[in-house]
């Protein structure tokens, strides 16, 4: 259908696929010089997420009941999911308690900011912007290195890059690999995985929306208008897939955080 539509489009000005550029909306306070580098909608949404998460959980647990109401039950389920499902299962019964707040904040911060991409008008997952993903990854990176140093001293770096039970010859090969994988690739994959999935989801939304608009509004042929409707139908399926990915990525991001912290705490245990 595109092959049929595009030649015509080129004559009439044509269909312009959305670009990454479009994920950067105009700034509200453009005090940074370059376009796309000021204070914009994305940062407002970060602030909004902080307010919403704080409000929801403090309100839900303000007067805790033994038999919880709907709101308290929902909040407690979320809390218990992170506390037991991620924290206790990964970090372990002995050490997980101090890390509950970090994991909790990480999970719901990422989750809500991802879900912003599925809410009309907001319609932008905050972590489709690399800066936010980098910020989170840097915080987590700094945290688990600090944990390792606190638990094992400077020896931590040796423990982290030398797998036990490996012959010295292999160590010559493995140590550089471990250094690259643990200290360079790990924070990059941690952040880029989140950012790329969110950006891809967002681009799909933009593509479907602009494509459907182009097919329905700009094109005159009834058949093409019908295809536009089909695009919208297909988009609904994509929307639910995106919802799943948003939740999944928030879970994965938090799970990896827990795994990194666990690895730092028990660097000498493996």
């Amino acid at each position: 259908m595109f092959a049929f539509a595009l030649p015509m489009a080129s004559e009439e000005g044509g269909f312009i696929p959305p670009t990454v550029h479009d994920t950067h909306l105009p700034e509200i306070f453009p005090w940074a010089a370059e376009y796309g580098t000021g204070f914009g909608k994305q940062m407002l949404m970060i602030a909004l997420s902080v307010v919403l998460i704080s409000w929801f959980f403090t309100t839900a647990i303000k007067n805790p009941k033994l038999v919880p109401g709907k709101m308290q039950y929902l909040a407690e389920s979320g809390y218990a999911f992170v506390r037991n499902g991620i924290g206790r299962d990964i970090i372990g019964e002995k050490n997980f308690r101090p890390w509950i707040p970090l994991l909790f904040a990480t999970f719901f911060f990422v989750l809500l900011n991802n879900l912003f991409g599925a809410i009309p008008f907001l319609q932008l997952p905050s972590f489709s912007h690399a800066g936010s993903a980098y910020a989170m990854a840097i915080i987590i990176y700094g945290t688990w290195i600090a944990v390792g140093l606190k638990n094992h001293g400077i020896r931590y770096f040796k423990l982290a890059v030398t797998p036990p039970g490996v012959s010295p010859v292999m160590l010559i090969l493995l140590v550089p690999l471990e250094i690259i994988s643990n200290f360079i690739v790990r924070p990059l994959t941690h952040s880029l995985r989140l950012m790329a999935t969110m950006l891809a989801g967002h681009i799909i939304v933009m593509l479907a929306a602009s494509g459907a608009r182009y097919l329905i509004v700009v094109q005159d042929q009834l058949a093409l208008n019908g295809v536009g409707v089909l695009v919208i139908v297909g988009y609904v399926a994509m929307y639910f897939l995106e919802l799943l990915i948003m939740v999944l990525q928030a879970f994965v991001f938090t799970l990896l955080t827990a795994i990194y912290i666990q690895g730092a705490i028990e660097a000498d245990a493996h």
Partner: protein
Amino acid sequence: MNSTDFILAAEESVNPLLPNPWEILATGVGFAVLLFIVIKVIAPKFEQAYEDRVTAIEGGLEKAEAAQKEAEETLAQYKAQLLEARTEANRIREEARSEGAQILEDLKTKATDEATRISEQAQRQIQAERVAAQASLRTDVGTLATELASKIVDEALKDDARAQHVVDRFLNDLESQQSAGASN
């Protein structure tokens, strides 16, 4: 969007991997604020609620278990008491029955003894009376015979008719005396 936008966008060609420093700052600060609130308020409250619930549920279960145990003990006690009471009642009933039978037996024996005693006494009395009567009769008959003999002798000397008369009178006396004695 129009074609000029597209061209502009293509010219600028934003690299999605290059971060906006403001976004890093905003996300970092936002997350720090959220983490602070979670550490200070949210996490302690949820942990507290969780602890409270665990305590309440465990306490409730223990209480229920204790109550159950107590109830079972009481029931067992009651059953034991009931059994005891039944046994006691049976025992008492048996006792009463045997006691009643005993009493009846005793009474019968006593009554028989009494009857025997009374009849023996009566026999003895009759015997004694008869002995006494015989003794008295023997004395009386002797006396009467002597008297009669003296009278007969006395009368015979005077008159046959008279003698006859005396004899009749004596017999009459004797008869009347005898009937009086019998009536006695």
